[in-house]
Every structure is written in C-alpha cells, then in structure tokens.
C-alpha cells in the first residue's frame, strides 16, 4: 500500500502540461481485487488483479475532448493528453461545457478505507469461500448444488485534479461473499442467492449469505405459474432497490434537460403517493456506494428528490448544473478513469415506514410477494415509463405467505407505480448497489401468467 500520494503526483503532472487557455482535468485511478471461487470443497479459481490508468479531459473554449490510457507511463500520458486535445477540436461548441470548480461545500469525512483488509492472508480468503460453500451445501437436504460461492475484496484509490482548482483524493476498501445455489425436489430445480458485504473481513457473515440463498431457493420449490390478474404486490427489499435505481435515472439532470425524463416538467408537482420520500445521499456511510466526493472531485451531499410525494429536485454534475441554471449537486458519476463524468443518483434511499414485512403482508391480505425480478433492462423504459419485468415470488393469502410462483411478469408504468405506493416497510437493507432496499407495497399491478 503506497497511499494515493503517487496518484496525485501523476494527476498534478498531467494538469501541469495544460497549454495556455485550456482547461485540463486528470482522473487517476488504481484498483486491486482478489476473487476466490469455491466449488465442491476445492478452490475453483483464484484471481488477483490490479488495474490503473488515467482519463484526461480537455476543454478548449466551449469544446470538450477526452482520452484515456490504462497505464502510468509518462510518454503514453503525454500522447493521451494530445489525443484528448485533438478530440476536443471535433466537438460541437457548447456554452455549458466546462470542468467543475470548487464550490466551497465541505468534503465529509467518511471512514471508507480499512487497511486491515489489505493484510488478510490469501488462506483466510480461501477459507471463507470454502466455508460459505460448505454452509450452503449443509443448509438443507434439498440443496442439490452450489453454482458459485465466492469471496471478493477490492481496494480502490483515485485522484481528480484540474486546472480549475479541483484536487480530491479518495480511497476505499470493500469485500463481500456471495453465493448462488440450486435446490431440487421432484426433479424440478430452483435457484437462490445470498451475500454479505462489508469494508473489512470482520464485517462479513457467511452464515447470513448462506441462510438467504437456502431460503430463497427452497421456498420456490414447487412453484407454479399464476393466472393473469391485477393485484397488490409487495416488493422484497432487493427488488425495490432495483426499481428505485431506475426511478433515480429519470431524475438525472441530463435526462431532464435532454427531454428524456417523464418527470421533466413536474418539479414541485405531487407525482407520487404521500408515503414516498426519496433521498440521494452518498455521504451516508451505511450506503455501499458512499463516497466523500463525486466523479469530478466535488463534495458529496444530500439531495431530497421526493418529499411526501412532491418532486423536489433533479441531480446535476457541473455541466448539467450550469445548463439548468443551477449548480452541481455533487452527482457526477463515472465508470472509473475510462469515461467522462455522467450524471446520476449515487446512493438512493426511500424514507422507511412503520411496519416490517410480516406486518405489511397482514395489511395487504391478498396479493403477491415479488422476491426477484429478471429483465429490468429489457422491459422497463425510463423515457416512456413503461414497466414490465419477469418475476418470481410467493402468493400472499390471508396475510400470510403461501404457494410459490414463477414464470410471470409484473407490469405498470413508473409514473403509476409511484402514485400507487400503499406502504413503505421499516426494513431498510443497505444492499451492494446504488440504492437501498426496503419492502414496498404497490397496488393495482398487472400480473401476466396463464
């Protein structure tokens, strides 16, 4: 562990190469990760990886260009800067183009780097993957196989620096165990998954991951296809998180300004049930995607998107903030050093309600619990709002979970689902994604089956 000092040196050097009259931003990143997979009591694979590189953005007047290179080699970086500069000359002039500028918002102190993770011997990582696989296999006599059982750890460091005075360093560690298993009964197979996430080894609870995977796979055994109907659905926290993430994408400044959001003209309107309060807050250390700064090096901050169903705000990076006549909300997102900053929600969470899932089920009485969805990317259109996704789950009858169901879809529109929210659970679950999970009750959803 050399610290991100050397990354900052590289970023400073690239920024120092800026010619007169041009603005340059360098994002320098390095990450390491280890992945151990266990299979049938043995190590199936062990991979270790380190990747690094520099992304360079050049703004010349009102044009922007970008190039990246997956190396720290000075000659290549000089070439990459030249390439970015050349690329800028082909961009259309755009008065809003520009790098982020320091905005005075204090960078929060978040404890996201756990040096202890870097000290873990490989044997311990292997042992944890093997333990997880063994737990699942022993978890229920109906478990017929473990498709994958893995331990993964990752360390990432980055520095963003620019001629406009940005200079931000960040470093974080994360690790998780994840398992996906098969359960079999009467010749029919079902699958389940589970995981446990943390910042260091001691945070991980393989038994939780195992219990989830075993429960998810075995409770679906014997599942049948339901008849088509309209019903009240209860989304499991993991499903809610995926729905919220798509909703968040419709609230990005870019989608709004470019006319691709169904909520573009709705600021200040009551677009959802009064039960819906949605916040984006990457400063929350509980969030898996917590980070002190955004992809342009500005401080992360809390943005209230929906309060009691009323649309409060959209999220912005420096570019869309300028275009919208406001300012960045610290929502520049980028996929490492290989891309320019986009704009998006970073750590979404619904304000929780009063009831846990069993109490919600009793309140619903009759309906469907959706335990997993498939095909969100193919059946949900964040521009039109049309929503349709494959689903598995359990019937809710008399306030209790009943027969397992499979091979059906749930459909509505994002706009209508927001209005049809009947309850938000109290069971907030910080999942390894950019949105937190919570049980969510939505009425009048179309179930397509037989």
């Amino acid at each position, binding site marked *: 562990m050399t610290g991100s000092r050397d990354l900052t040196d590289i970023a400073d050097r690239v920024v120092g190469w800026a010619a007169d009259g041009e603005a340059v931003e360098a994002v320098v990143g390095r990450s390491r990760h280890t992945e151990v997979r266990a*299979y*049938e009591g043995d*190590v*199936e*694979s*062990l*991979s*270790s*990886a380190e*990747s*690094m590189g520099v992304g360079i953005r050049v703004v010349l007047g009102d044009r*922007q*260009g*970008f*190039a*990246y*290179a*997956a*190396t720290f080699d000075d000659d290549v970086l000089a070439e*990459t800067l030249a390439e970015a500069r050349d*690329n800028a000359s*082909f*961009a259309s002039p755009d008065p809003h183009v520009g790098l982020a500028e320091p905005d005075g918002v204090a960078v929060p102190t978040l404890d996201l780097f756990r040096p202890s993770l870097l000290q873990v011997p490989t044997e311990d990582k292997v042992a944890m993957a093997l333990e997880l696989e063994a737990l699942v296999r022993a978890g229920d006599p109906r478990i*017929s*196989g473990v498709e*994958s059982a893995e331990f993964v750890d990752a360390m990432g460091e980055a520095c963003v620096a620019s001629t406009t005075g940005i200079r931000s360093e960040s470093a974080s560690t994360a690790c998780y165990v994840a398992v996906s298993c*098969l359960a079999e009964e009467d010749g029919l*197979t079902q*699958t389940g998954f589970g995981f446990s996430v943390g910042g260091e080894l001691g945070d991980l609870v393989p038994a939780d991951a195992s219990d989830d995977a075993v429960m998810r796979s075995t409770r679906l055994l014997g599942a049948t*296809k339901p008849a*088509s109907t309209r019903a009240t659905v209860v989304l499991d926290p993991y499903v809610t998180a995926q729905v919220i993430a798509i909703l968040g994408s419709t609230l990005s400044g870019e989608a709004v300004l*470019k*006319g*691709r959001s*169904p909520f573009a003209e709705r600021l200040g309107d009551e677009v959802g049930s009064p039960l819906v309060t949605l916040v984006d807050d990457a400063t929350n250390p509980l969030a898996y995607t917590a980070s002190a700064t955004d992809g342009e090096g500005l401080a992360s901050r809390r943005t209230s998107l929906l309060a009691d169903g009323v649309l409060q705000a959209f999220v912005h990076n420096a570019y869309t903030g300028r275009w919208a006549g406001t300012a960045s909300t610290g929502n520049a997102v980028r996929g490492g050093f*290989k*891309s*320019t900053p986009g704009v998006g929600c970073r750590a979404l969470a619904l304000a929780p309600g009063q009831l846990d899932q069993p109490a919600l089920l009793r309140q619903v009485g009759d309906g469907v619990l959706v335990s997993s969805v*498939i*095909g969100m*990317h*193919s*059946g949900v*259109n964040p*521009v*039109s709002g*049309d929503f*349709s*996704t*494959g689903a598995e789950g359990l019937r809710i009858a008399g306030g209790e979970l009943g027969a397992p169901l*499979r*091979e*059906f*879809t*749930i*459909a509505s529109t994002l706009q209508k689902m927001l209005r049809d929210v009947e309850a938000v659970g109290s069971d907030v679950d910080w999942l390894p994604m950019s949105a937190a999970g919570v049980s969510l009750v939505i009425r009048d959803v*179309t*179930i*397509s*089956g037989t």
Partner: protein
Amino acid sequence: MAVIEEDVLSRVLGAALQGGGEFAEVFAEDKRSTSAVLDDGRIEELASGRDRGAGVRVISGETTGYAHTSDLSEAGLRAAAEAAGAAARRGGGGSNVVALDRQAVRHPSTVAIQPEDVAKATKVELLRRADEAARGADGAVRQVSARYGDSRRRILVANSEGLLTGDDQVRTLFSVGVVAAGDTGMQTGRQSVGHTVGFELFDRYEVEDMARKAASRAVTKLGARPAPSGEMPVVIGAGGGGVLFHEACGHGLEADLVAKGASVYRDRVGQQVASPLVTLIDDGTVADEWGCFGIDDEGSPAQRNVLIQDGVLTDYMWDVTRGRKEGRPRSGNGRRQSYQHLPMVRMTNTFLANGTEDPADIIAGTDHGVYVAQLGGGSVNTATGDFVFGMWEAYLIEDGVVTEPLREGNLIGNGPQVLTDIEALGDDFAMGSPGTCGKDGQGVPVGDGVPTLRVRSLTIGGTAA
C-alpha cells in the same frame, strides 16, 4: 501490439508452472478504441482509449490461478506468472521452459479500411447526417442520439501445450436512438448496426436509413396501445428475434453451467429437446458478423458447432477448462472481455437454420397473437429455464393480419417448453443487430439470427386485459 519475444513467452510459461500445475497460458491484448457521441444536436464527445496488458493462467488439478498485469516486460509477465502459479498452488515440481509452435490463423473477415486510418472528421460527419435524417423523418421527433464506435483488438495466446497464436479483431458499430413525443407521452426507437469489419461498414449501410428506422419505431409507438397480458401465440420477425434462442437455450448449452447442474439441458445430449423444425448453430466463423473472430481468447480457432439438429441436442459448447476436465476437444467458445478476465464458455454467433414456409403464411395462419418485429435484450435463469426478453417493436395480430402497434414490455417463457412450441419456421433467415452478451460480469460481442417463426404460446407481460 508490442511483440513479446517467443523466448520470453517460453520462460514466462515455465515460471508459471514452477510450483506445479498442468497447464499455463499467457494471453496478451492491445486494444485501441474510438467512440464519438452526438446527443441533443451536438457532438458531445470524441473519446479514444488504449488498453494493453496480459493475463497469466495456471491450472492445477481443480484449481485455476489467474493474475494480470499492464506491464508487458519480461519482469512484469514473470511476476504475473508467479502470482498465478502461487494462486493455483498445488504440490509437485514443475517443468521449466515451454517450446512454442506458432500457428497461422485465418480470420473469417477481411478489413478493407482500418478505422484508425479514417479521419475523425469523417466519423463525426456520420453522426451529423444521422441526426439530420432522424429529425427530418417526422415532426414528432424530439431528441436524437447517435453513437459511432470502432475498436481494434490484437491478441496473442501462448500456452504450455506449445501453442503460439494471435488474432487481429476489428469491429465497427453505429447506433441511433430517437425520442418522439405526442399526446400519449414519449416513446423511444433505436437501430444499430455492427460488424467485424472496418470503416467499409458505411459503404454497406446508410446512416440515414438507420436514423429513419429508429425514428419510425419511436413515432409508431406513440399510437401504440398497452401490450396484452397473458399467454398467446407469438410470431417473431426474421432477424429480429435471435435473442430468443440465445436466452431460451444458448446459455443452457454452455458446458460450465451444464457441469454445475445449473442447466435444464444437463444430461440431454441425444434427446429430442426441441421441435423438429429447430436446428441451432453457434458459429464463430461467419464472416463479418459481430461475434466472429479468427481464434477465441484461448487460442482455439473459431468453428461452426451444430448444437441442436432437427430438434435433437447434439452437443454443448466448450472451453479449455471444461474440455480438459471431460476429455473433450475445445469448440472455439472460450472467450473473455479483456486480459483482466478469466475466459469462460461463451456463445459467438448463435442462429437458427432457415425454414421452408412463406413468412406471410405464418402471419396469416395466426388468429390472434402478437407479432414481434424487434426483440430487445433478454435474460435467463439457466437452472430453471425461465427467460425473458423485451419487445422493442411489436404489433397485434388479429385474424391473421398485423394490426395495431404495442407499447413495450417483456415476454416470459420457459426454454425447453418454448423450443418444443416452435410450430412454424419461415424461409427468410436474417442475422440480427449486434449484441453484447453478459455473463458473470463480463461482456463479449455476439451475433444472432432467425427466420420468421411462430411460438405456440408465450406470456406477454403487458397491462391490458
């Protein structure tokens, strides 16, 4: 790419096997890419990227060790080799130096114009033309985005069996997305074309045609009614529906999933798994198609594999790991996203062989159902066989006639059931749009294709009764 000397490779492979281990491999990659994006009427971004590095894999017993580096010097490669060897650590002394035998490779495609030789201004001009054509296509068009992308990926594979080979893979892609708005809100349409060729792609396709197709899809959907809900016959248009087979059975025929019991097609070789109309082929040698190459990412030449012949399952797809375990030859299906990833069993171009019926008769023979002209992406749970795919362009069929357009939604079905339910196959085979297939977090380019066909019953995930 920076050439790695043959004797360096020999020594690195030797070092990889030093701690014991039966198989070692060096995979080196040098990829350059360009992308240009137009959105909201402006050329937003022209970006260039360079990725270069090597991964070393060591297989020892049941264990695979893997490490990669962006340092292609002998010292860098040896460090990766030692890390991979240690990861696979299992007893026994090792071999030392591996003798390599360079293999000639015949790439299915020839590249007429290297994209790197084309001026950036020429690439950017394509985007402007597409923008203009889409906006001019209909007054309801509100927003247009277009993307140009090219990549040149040079790879080298050397392994302890003595193999030394390489490939030069050039791909060019263009896509257009359109938003149209009307009284019913907004709708989207898109069109993309991609081939394993150079810039001559644009001698074969007019970007204006692509733009107008995308615009027409968006505008048509403004008048669309909600898709129905429930089971009904579905006719899938030629070229528009290959993803159906990619999801319904392609993934389930990948030997790694089969071996782990995570496939409904396990233990079914030699059995009737589909309607006798179905002959399914995976073929990495189809010239110019998005999923073609000279060698796969383990150095095996691309080949044509018949997976299902007249409804009977003939074979699975294989890579080095699964082939070694089961004493099987590789089938040219070992692929990886980049040098940072371990290869897995992956599809290439997966398609259905042509049928004999007139596609017009297939539609006319459908009383009440849905005609899907273009499928979107899909997903599958290979263990249960349940899969979904999106419909980006679909219509009702009423009394044998294609009528009203439908809004978007997913279709859901079960692979083995759908394969048996294929009841009509047209004579109008066409390859479809370029796709990126995701598995275990790795994306690789794949192609697909089908003639017009009818499935007896699929569940349409709409909202209408």
